[in-house]
């Protein structure tokens, strides 16, 4: 088996425009959620008027032509990619051995809906020629491939809120299968638009805590009432250990294993016993060659929905058994909101940082933990992971449609 390591990280998130600010915000237990800075709620009668909006707009860092040629989802991916690539030391790699796997759960929804608005207002002749290249869901992957001249392959596996994690899984496979030495992978989402918000709200999936946006995302709390939509991108640079060693790269962590399953149960609801989630975590541990007792930390999918959080918590408890008492569980969506296709990637960045710095980030807003929760939840302030020895951590991501992805990372 080719060992796969992480050598670069990048993000733009509701907590910050880069990894350092985002991670610092997470350790500080800061909320990136706020009231929408527009009048949509009033104009459209929306039930939800807040979200995890980006801390730094891509237009502040990208050139004007770049923002005109890319959907916001691709813009965010490019911002995160540039950081991750520089962070990895801008490795010299044969373009045909460099891959790009960047997913979005929703795709270029801003582009599609803005073009439709233009067409309704001004007619078909005013629809811009860049509409299709901008709205296609593979656009972020394609732009990352263009940015870095990555020619081993560019992919965008889509599985709703598991997409970002699935992209990292595919990046791992590209290296394992010998298709690439380095793969830039992750996820992105720019769906803070009235239509997706209203669509999620129509499913009763979103928190309606309009009077307390920062307290709205509260995974595992008894008062949780739905997820908070977030936006942004997370990107990781995966590399074969051999390639990383040959160029003396700094290694953050190892990607040890992954598991992917499907519930085959319901188009939106998770299977109540979390069997698919458990199997995904089991597969990841088996691939990693780890026992449950090797796991020190779990970055949960936990979106703050009444049903979903506890299905996952029970699956974790069921798999880890009494060892759950020694596992530090973090639900970072409490601070970032839910980045949908960006979630699994941003949370991988958090998981990798947690292993590197041996500290588990907090879960905020849990004033009254669900009495059924039987895993050691990190609340309000970060907690130290064991200072010595090899550590491993699981990052779970699940998506509408019954997609379950578990990634297992280990200390470098």
């Amino acid at each position: 088996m080719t060992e796969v390591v992480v050598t670069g990280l990048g993000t733009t998130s509701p907590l910050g425009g880069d990894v350092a600010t985002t991670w610092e915000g997470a350790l500080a237990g800061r909320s990136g959620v706020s009231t929408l800075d527009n009048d949509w709620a009033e104009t459209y009668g929306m039930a939800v008027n807040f979200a995890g909006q980006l801390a730094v707009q891509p237009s502040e860092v990208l050139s004007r032509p770049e923002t005109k040629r890319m959907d916001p989802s691709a813009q965010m991916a490019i911002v995160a990619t540039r950081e991750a690539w520089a962070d990895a030391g801008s490795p010299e790699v044969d373009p045909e051995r460099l891959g790009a796997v960047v997913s979005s759960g929703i795709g270029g929804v801003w582009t599609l809906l803005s073009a439709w608005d233009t067409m309704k207002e001004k007619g078909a002749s005013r629809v811009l020629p860049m509409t299709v290249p901008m709205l296609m869901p593979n656009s972020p992957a394609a732009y990352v491939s263009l940015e870095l001249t990555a020619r081993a392959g560019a992919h965008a596996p889509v599985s709703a809120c598991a997409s970002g994690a699935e992209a990292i899984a595919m990046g791992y496979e590209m290296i394992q299968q010998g298709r690439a030495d380095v793969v830039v992978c992750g996820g992105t989402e720019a769906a803070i638009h009235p239509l997706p918000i209203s669509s999620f709200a129509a499913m009763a999936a979103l928190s309606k805590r309009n009077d307390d946006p920062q307290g709205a995302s509260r995974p595992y709390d008894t008062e949780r009432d739905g997820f908070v939509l977030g936006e942004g991108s997370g990107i990781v640079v995966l590399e074969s250990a051999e390639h990383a060693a040959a160029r003396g790269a700094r290694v953050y962590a190892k990607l040890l294993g992954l598991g992917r399953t499907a519930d085959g149960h319901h188009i939106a609801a998770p299977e109540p016993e979390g069997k698919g989630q458990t199997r995904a975590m089991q597969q990841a541990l088996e691939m990693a060659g780890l026992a449950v007792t090797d796991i020190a930390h779990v970055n949960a999918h936990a979106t703050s929905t009444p049903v979903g959080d506890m299905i996952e918590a029970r699956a974790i408890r069921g798999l880890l058994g009494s060892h759950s008492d020694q596992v530090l569980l973090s639900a970072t969506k409490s601070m970032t909101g839910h980045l949908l296709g960006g979630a699994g990637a941003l949370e991988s960045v958090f998981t990798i940082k947690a292993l590197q710095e041996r500290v588990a980030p907090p879960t905020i807003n849990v004033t009254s933990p669900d009495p059924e929760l039987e895993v050691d939840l990190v609340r309000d302030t970060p907690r130290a992971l064991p200072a010595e020895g090899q550590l491993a951590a699981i990052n779970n991501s699940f998506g509408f449609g019954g997609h379950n992805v578990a990634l297992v990372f280990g200390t470098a």
Partner: protein
Amino acid sequence: MADTNEILAGLAEIVAEETGLDAAEVTAEKSFTDDLDIDSLSMMTIVTLAEEKFDVRIPDEEVKNLTTVGDAVTFIEGAQK
């Protein structure tokens, strides 16, 4: 109706937005492809935006004849009438 200079200035603004070039670089004798490095997709975007700005119709089959910025200005000026 815009005069020649207004059309050139307006077109230069569109080209500058699309390409990131300084509008002052977008002069009449410049070739869209050879001097300004504009690909066909960008050219179609410029045409669409120019149609809206100057309220003219630039048929697809006409676009290939617009080699220089000046060609486009002349066409737009004629099409306004």
